[in-house]
């Protein structure tokens, strides 16, 4: 059969660059990258989108998209996106940040961008730990979870409690959309894709800040197989971090 007769039914999105996904086997970031590519394509804004990565595993993300982009210093993507958006208001700014990047070093930067009512979209990658530096505790690490810096499990007397960023973002006036999603089952993948689309639409329509938190597997730092990671998300992470929309408004008065 010649190639002319073949019909493409599935393949890489056109916004995926030729550079291979640089994450570990079993990591969910590849699926999240696909969701981003598909939504940007479907919304027709690829020509005016600028995608910013953070420090950690999302540092390489700007290489993986056929989009203008930059990798930002640790936690600072919302400040950089703020300036890029204010200078060129017609661009669509997406920040992709891990839980150390946004939840720890950059929490103030993120909250102040919400407080200013910036028209940005943030993809927050919650894998309950620091991936790139080798599995230390993050603000999102579960109570009792063993990491390289909580060797006897996270004890709230010593290391406090898991941070709920999607709920935190939802209480801010400037937030138009906030949701928590996963890609650990096909049905959840579809819901996650819709959430990212809504978070982008809030920016495109100039309504306000769009935020989506992904619960995401980290087999390397969790010391689990990819399938054990799915069980961990299902049994442990969902118990701490409920899925759903925490805010979805079409107007901010």
């Amino acid at each position: 059969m010649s190639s002319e007769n073949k019909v493409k039914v599935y393949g890489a999105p056109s916004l995926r660059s030729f550079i291979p996904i640089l994450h570990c086997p079993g990591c969910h970031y590849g699926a999240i990258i696909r969701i981003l590519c598909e939504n940007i394509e479907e919304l027709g804004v690829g020509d005016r989108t600028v995608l910013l990565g953070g420090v950690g595993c999302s540092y390489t993300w700007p290489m993986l998209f056929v989009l203008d982009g930059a990798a930002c210093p640790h936690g600072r993507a919302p400040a950089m996106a703020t300036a890029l958006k204010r200078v060129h208001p017609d661009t669509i700014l997406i920040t992709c940040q891990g839980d150390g990047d946004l939840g720890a070093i950059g929490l103030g930067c993120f909250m102040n961008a919400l407080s200013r009512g910036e028209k940005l979209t943030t993809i927050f990658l919650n894998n309950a730990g620091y991936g790139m530096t080798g599995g230390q505790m993050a603000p999102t690490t579960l109570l009792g979870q063993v990491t390289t810096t909580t060797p006897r499990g996270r004890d709230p007397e010593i290391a406090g409690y898991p941070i709920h960023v999607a709920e935190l973002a939802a209480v801010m006036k400037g937030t138009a959309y906030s949701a928590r999603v996963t890609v650990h089952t096909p049905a959840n993948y579809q819901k996650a894709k819709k959430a990212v689309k809504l978070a982008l639409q809030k920016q495109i329509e100039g309504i306000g800040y769009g935020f989506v938190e992904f619960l995401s597997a980290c087999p390397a730092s969790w010391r689990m197989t990819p399938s054990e990671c799915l069980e961990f998300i299902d049994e442990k992470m969902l118990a701490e971090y409920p899925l759903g929309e925490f805010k979805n408004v079409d107007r901010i008065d």
Partner: protein
Amino acid sequence: MDEKIFITGNEAIARGAIAAGCKYFFGYPITPQSDIGEYLSAELPKIGGAFIQSESESASIYMLYGGAMSGERVMTSTSGCGFALMAEGISYISAAEVPCVVVDVMRMGPGIGTGGQQGQTDYRYATSGAGHGGSRCIVLAPASSQECFDMVQLAFYLTDIYGVLVIVLTDFIIGRMAEPVGIRTIDFGPVPEKDWALVGKGKKEGRTDRHFGGASYPPRSVGMSVPAYHEHQRQKYQNIMDTEVRYETYQAEDAELLLVSYGSSARVCRGAVELGRAEGLRLGLFRAITVWPFPREELREAVLRAGKVLVVEDSIGEFVDDVEFAVLGQVPVHLLGVWGRHQAGGSGIIHPERVLEEVRGLL
């Protein structure tokens, strides 16, 4: 003839930035430079630009970094402690080679210092690169409102030419003192096109650009090996050292003793030269205008001609290190520092008469 107005150095910085085509400013309030942001918050919206009050100087420098990637001319200003908070961002900006301007209106340090009064205590930090990882910044040291107005325009030109962050280093006295300023837009010549700006690929015929702020990824040297990247940086800094040194001398030709200074202290020294000359003392002044690159060769020649040298600066000795390095131990370098102030409180300053007293002890 230029329009002349009577304004402070801080206002001259703000007006000079607008004259240079800067429409975007990001800043956090800190004494003694808050009036730069105040002025621009009123003026930039009128010309289609934007002022953003950041939540910290850390945020200011990252807004500046993002703004620089937009391809437009962008600026922040700060002082002392706030300047220190910008260190990481200054290094990233230096690595990415995106053009922008930082103004540091120095206040007395260390720490909270005197709460925002006069001092020249950020010199060593600013001139040694102001960030981690071996980055460098061009540092301009204006000594009048007119120079503030002109040099902020020069700063935007130099940062566009070299892709090196330019620091305009003033202080409380220069920032808060009002003087007549001729309003003029200076044309320094063409600058490279910013075809790497993050405006969305739709405006660039589908071409994408990505900035990583690290070795081998700056926009002007994509894909370099690590040694090649560092050689590129070295050559760039060497080129700046070879071509951008600026300084000024006053009555230095026949001087027996050369006063060496910068910024507001150089104004004091100029007064001392005039007082001394009136008494028949052969005093001269050498003022560094670029403090990085430092006018090493030029200063050494002037010092060797005079034979005696007194450095005046409002600190315990920072600028003096660069003078020592330039003179290479060939003549003794004397210093009049913060102990030369006329009073013990935070508003003390070094007067020309005190400089002259020090000079008499050396002649």
